[in-house]
């Protein structure tokens, strides 16, 4: 029976960092990636930047980001619901994440080019996550990590003492192996419709999965079934508003709909339900994702007029346009009279702020729900619409780990040869909320820790 020192389950950032770290520590490493080579890398495929503390200036960001700032940003986003010790470990260990990646062949995009969003908190990968994956896979191969694509983990056998066996599924057939240590880096269950239906009921059918179709949560379920402790909340998920016409999986960054403040959002009955001007920070993506999840049939329509459309950012699909509101309603299959009344009520209620030239000041009077900013009347033909659905990015349920990234049992004991890194254990740190660039940082920091610790255990 094949017996690697360390088995890495997964193929994204956490998996590669764990594999490289374990191999460098002297262990023989087998990496089992469920996806074929062309779709390797989990949701790292869609990522672009990582959050890192740095107390001196760096060409990779526009200013310093001290430990306290990172901690307080994290606490604010999560309502301080994350494990404090692991959060602190993450923040401190993030300090050398970019150096470690650079040394492993990853390239960053310096801010000096002036082509990046200004961010002192995150470093941007040159070419995004796919480029990082290419570099890390090349490095892992060069170091002698054995990589198997199309190789999923079917099941695990955890005994009283340790993880005993792991079942690898290749070409439709399963076989059991006995790695000395294993690292689970295979993400959450957001691509698993049955799993989503269990927690969201029929609403799950209205969700689109923004990321890899391979995040099916089989390993997560197997771990729970054998007594691993749960963290986070299975009934919540990080959702953003995406174009309803997007593919069911893997739509990534381009499917987002971002310009709600420019228009009005109506549900499938043609009625407004939220203040579209209330959220203008980047957090609005997630706010609208949650709102859409609670809409009838999980769908809503952003209605714009020609003027608003001119200010909209580029979109994946062209907006649905029509020369009259009635024909727009027809194309969207919305009740025309309700939509007309909604728009008429809205337009009648709009009024400028102190400076009529400044769109921010425009708001509605005596309208429920109100629109508190950017409430310009929508009158210029043609009208346009983007249909929107909630796009699931990740789920807030994972396995509990200790500071060595070892998986914990219900009673709090660590399984000595089973480790977890990346989004499968991210809910230890973010049981709710999110800050940009955090997923990669968790993958890098805990991937490295898990790899080193797994190698140490295997070589004992």
């Amino acid at each position, binding site marked *: 029976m094949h017996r690697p020192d360390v088995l890495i389950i997964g193929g994204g950032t956490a998996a590669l960092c764990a594999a490289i770290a374990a191999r460098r520590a002297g262990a023989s490493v087998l990496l089992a990636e469920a996806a074929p080579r*062309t*779709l390797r890398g989990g949701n790292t*495929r*869609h990522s*672009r930047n990582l959050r890192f503390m740095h107390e001196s200036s760096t060409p990779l960001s526009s200013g310093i980001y001290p430990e306290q700032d990172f901690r307080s940003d994290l606490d604010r986003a999560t309502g301080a619901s994350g494990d404090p010790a692991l959060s602190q470990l993450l923040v401190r260990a993030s300090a050398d994440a970019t150096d470690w990646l650079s040394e492993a062949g990853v*390239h960053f*995009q310096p801010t000096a*080019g002036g*082509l*990046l969003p200004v961010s002192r908190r995150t470093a*941007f990968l*040159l*070419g*995004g*996550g*796919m*480029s990082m994956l*290419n570099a890390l*896979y*090349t490095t892992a191969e060069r170091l002698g990590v054995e990589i198997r694509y199309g190789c999923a983990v079917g099941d695990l056998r955890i005994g009283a003492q340790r993880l005993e066996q792991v079942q690898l599924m290749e070409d439709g057939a399963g076989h059991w192996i006995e790695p000395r240590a294993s690292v689970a880096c295979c993400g959450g269950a957001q691509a698993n419709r049955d799993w989503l239906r269990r927690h969201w009921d029929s609403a799950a059918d209205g969700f689109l999965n923004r990321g890899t179709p391979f995040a099916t949560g089989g390993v997560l379920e197997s771990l729970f079934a054998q007594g691993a402790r749960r963290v986070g909340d299975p009934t919540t998920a990080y959702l953003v508003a995406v174009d309803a016409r997007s*593919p069911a999986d*893997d739509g*990534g*960054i*381009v499917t987002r709909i971002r310009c709600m403040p420019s228009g009005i959002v109506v549900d499938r009955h043609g009625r407004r339900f939220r203040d579209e001007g209330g959220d203008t920070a980047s957090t609005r993506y997630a706010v609208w994702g949650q709102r859409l999840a609670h809409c009838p049939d999980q769908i809503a329509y952003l209605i714009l007029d020609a003027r608003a459309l001119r200010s909209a*950012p*580029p*979109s*994946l699909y062209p907006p649905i346009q029509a020369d009259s509101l009635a024909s727009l309603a027809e194309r969207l299959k919305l009740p025309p009279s309700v939509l007309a009344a909604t728009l008429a009520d809205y337009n009648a209620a709009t009024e400028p702020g102190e400076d009529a030239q400044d769109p921010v000041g425009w708001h509605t009077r005596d309208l429920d729900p109100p629109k508190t900013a950017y409430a310009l009347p929508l009158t210029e033909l043609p009208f346009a619409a983007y249909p929107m659905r909630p796009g699931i990015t990740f789920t807030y349920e994972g396995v509990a780990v200790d500071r060595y990234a070892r998986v914990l049992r219900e009673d709090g004991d660590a399984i000595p040869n089973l480790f977890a890194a990346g989004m499968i254990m991210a809910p230890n740190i973010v049981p709710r909320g999110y800050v940009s660039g955090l997923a990669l940082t968790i993958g890098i920091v805990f991937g490295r820790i898990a790899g080193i610790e797994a190698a140490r255990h295997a070589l004992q």
Partner: protein
Amino acid sequence: MHSSEHRDEARRVLGICDACGYCNGFCDLFEAARRRPALGDGDLAHLANLCHACRNCLYACQYAPPHVFAVNVPRTLTTLRQDTYVEHAWPKWLALLLEHSRLSTLIVTLVATGIMIALILAYAPPDALFDRHLGAGAFYRVLPWGAMAAIGAIPLAWSCLAIGIGLHRYWRRIRTAPVPLTTRALADAMRDVVLLRNLRGGGPGCNDLDDRLSHARRRLHQTLAGGVLLSFTATLVATLYHHTFGWEAPYPILSLPVMLGALGGIAMTLGALGFLWLKQREDPEPTAPEARRSGAAILGLLLWVALTGLALLIWRASAAMGLLLALHLGSVLALFLLLPYSKLVHAGYRFLSLLIEAMEQQHKRAK
């Protein structure tokens, strides 16, 4: 597919790029595309020629095949670029040389070589072709200088005219924004040509062969282009020697024309062989079959020019000189004739697109 379908595909693909933007650190293309959201035909022609076909954006693409969006920017723009060569060819019917690059290169080379042999035979008795000729003016006993200069200069002048007309039309088509042409922009564009800044993947290099990065394509290009320039300079110096000083070829090994020519020939040989090796090994996914064919055709011709030139240098004192001279002059004649109707035409279009890009960047900085 027709070129209008190629343009529709480019609009679809660049629309996705516009919403994504992850690749904007690799080269100038993606920001240039963002500056022209309408993506009119002229915009697309400009962007297609601004693309240096470095491939990084395919390897970095989360939407590359087998993803359902099937985004392949380098292939899409390469196809479109081939279309712009055809669309701007003058006279129009000679665009068929571009469309059948391998066959046309072969035929033009054979015909040109045949003409040279015929000229030599017409000028000198048949055995002169295989006689040894030594000392000053040896070449011209096989073919007189005037004839040699004329069969070089006339096709070259024709080609310059044809390229000039194509470039003029192209320039009018891509200059869609009222941005001033400045010497600074011109200098920036020249620097971008010398450094091939857009073929560096933002610094670390390009996916020349596979998912690893290298600078092979950039270095091979400059080796080849440098070799061509050195060889051309050698010819100019020799012309100067002949005209101004009355010194007749062949020149000694340590003379400037021979040194420049030999160095140029060696650089061309290495560059062309390296490129051909790269084309054998490279992933064909980021490029288009017609571009691979036209690339290989012109590399073959450049290699033939270099090898016949080097052979002429080595065996110029032997009885083979007459034949080698005919082969070399035939290859050069073919090269001159094909300048506007082969892959070589990319140089002008790309330079103009780099110039527009430099103008726009300077304009943006000044604002």
